[in-house]
């Protein structure tokens, strides 16, 4: 897939059911062309992680995922020596008269190296997609440690040396802005901010993801979500919630929203007790607005 064109990427996204508004396709296109990592930020549930999944499907390669968390360190992200294996091997070799240097060479070879996601991605036979999810959850130390990989595509292991990438992986980093990322990291990446989609875009997403849905119901759901996001909620629902909800309602073969249905299924959309209560209070008002909105839209 060396000669991707912008139009091809758009087609690929479409084929995978990912609706884009130009900016996303452009960022992906340039990330591939410039061979730079892509840093994607945005609120929860707008399809940041999905980008990587779609990309790996479109490129027909493996997706290697690294979920970040506080305290993540290099042994979990990069590599680790397989100590037990090394020890067993040494025990087995005890009787035999083997030279120490040779022995040493064997136990510090690829055979005893446990590859963690980052190393796996750069030593992958073909171009892989490496998803570093929720990078803002990891410590700042980890971030600086990633810099070597991001800019030089190499990993240094003291016992072996520097491992250069056999094929430059396509790296996608995602973040929720729970913590501000360092300038050094930003500088090395292309940046993409994904916001909540517009009504039209969201409708297109719902139609693509839940094709069996009743047309009017889809419109109503998206209009309702739009109004819901206007409320000042603790956890504003994302697109993934919209899709879940659409799926749930479609599976019940409903054709329109009403107070009862919304109340019963609100848990699919809202995940916070206070938000639930707040929404229930203003439900009739919300639905009224939705009705108006859907008629216009």
């Amino acid at each position: 897939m060396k000669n991707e064109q912008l139009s091809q990427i758009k087609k690929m996204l479409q084929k995978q059911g990912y609706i884009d508004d130009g900016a996303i396709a452009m960022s992906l296109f340039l990330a591939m062309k410039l061979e730079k990592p892509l840093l994607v930020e945005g609120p929860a549930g707008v399809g940041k992680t999905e980008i990587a999944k779609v990309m790996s499907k479109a490129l027909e390669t493996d997706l290697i995922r690294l979920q970040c968390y506080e305290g993540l360190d290099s042994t979990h992200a990069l590599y680790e020596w397989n100590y037990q294996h090394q020890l067993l091997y040494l025990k087995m070799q005890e009787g035999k008269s083997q030279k120490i240097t040779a022995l040493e060479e064997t136990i510090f070879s690829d055979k005893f190296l446990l590859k963690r996601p980052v190393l796996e991605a750069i030593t992958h036979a073909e171009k892989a997609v490496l998803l570093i999810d929720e990078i803002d959850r990891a410590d700042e130390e980890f971030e600086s440690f990633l810099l070597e990989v991001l800019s030089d595509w190499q990993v240094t292991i003291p016992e072996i040396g520097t491992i250069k990438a056999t094929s430059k992986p396509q790296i996608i980093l995602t973040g929720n802005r729970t913590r501000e990322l360092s300038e050094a990291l930003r500088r090395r990446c292309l940046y993409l901010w994904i916001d909540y989609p517009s009504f039209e875009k969201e409708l297109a997403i719902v139609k693509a993801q839940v094709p069996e849905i009743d047309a009017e119901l889809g419109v109503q759901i998206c209009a309702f979500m739009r109004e819901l996001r206007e409320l000042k909620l603790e956890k504003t629902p994302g697109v993934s919630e919209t899709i879940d909800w659409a799926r749930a309602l479609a599976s019940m073969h409903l054709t329109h929203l009403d107070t009862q249905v919304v109340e019963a299924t609100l848990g699919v959309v809202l995940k916070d007790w206070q938000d639930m209560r707040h929404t229930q209070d203003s439900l009739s008002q919300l639905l009224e607005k939705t009705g108006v909105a859907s008629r216009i839209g």
Partner: protein
Amino acid sequence: MAQVLSTTFQTELSANIVLFCRFLRSKGFSLAALDEAEALRAISFLPVHSESYFKDALRAVLTKNKFQQIHFDTYYQAFKEEQKKGPNAKIKSIPDEKEQFPKKRKDAQFEALKDWLNLNPSKEKKEVASFSDIEVLTKKNFHDLSEDEMRLMLRMLQKMARKLAHQKSRLQKVSRRHRHLSLKRTIRANLRKGGEIQQLVFSEKKERKLKLVLLCDVSRSMDLYSRFFIHLIYAFQNAYDKIETFVFSTALHQVSELLNTNEFDKAFALISERVPHWSGGTTIGSCLHEFTNDYGHGMLDKKTIVLILSDGWDTGKPEVMKAAMKGMYKKTKKVIWLNPLAGSPDFSPEAIGMKTALPYIDVLASAHNFESLKQLLQQLGKKRNLGKLPNR
């Protein structure tokens, strides 16, 4: 823009890109020369010569955070208009509205600010200058202190601030001090030597440096305490590595750099020159809002403590204040509000600004004497009380 994309106009295009980057830099984008090169490379990949592609590509390469990405279109448009006006006009001639605004009012307000920043108020001189030991100091109200006592106090304060700026993280690192044996690391290190313990590895907790943002109210109602608070800011400024200081009354001004690069007295002379003075009352809400909007994306995170020094007399709208405080509360480790009025026994947060802000404050303290300050500094290290949920 479509024609300039063709190869015959390559030189003009690259010149334009460089100009555009320069323009963006003047708007606060941090772009390296490498970014310019990347932008040019990116454009060379574009399939069709359309402006929307061109703009999208530049946005993808040149923006590095949310704020920049959202405002990119506006800047792009502004730059284009500027280009249209005079193709040969230099970017430097574009007036920067933000900078001009404070300059206009500077002279008129200068004297008033100097008054406020006066470091030798006459009433202090009435005090008999005598040596007082720390015990006495701790309970004295700040505006009763003499100059010498103040200096002693500040030294203590500085010491404490420095100590608190360095906290222990849960992460471990290898240590040279032979205190805590790290079993895991020892075994791992010695496995490489064949499984026999030859070398011990010790560990200690990593230091976690806190970041501090100081927002100081310099309006007239705060006059009485201002002198002390300025000292306080200065003490903090030198103790913490990452600290940003702002002063506000009706508008917000960043003064960290001035404090960082100058001696105490000189720094304040400079501030009084550069910072335009307030008029009438304080609009805390809008100032805080300005802060979260313009600086928040780079300064607020879960390692940051925000310290607001103000009496809470807000003349703006409470909703603005509420939104700003809420945003701040969510993004930071802790929000601390120092209100000098809180020191008096019959204080209750009556001011509307104070009332609105209260749910989003972790600690409301008075800091009117040393003892209360000490308590406050201890608070800086503690974790946020998660049981307390902010009301809507």
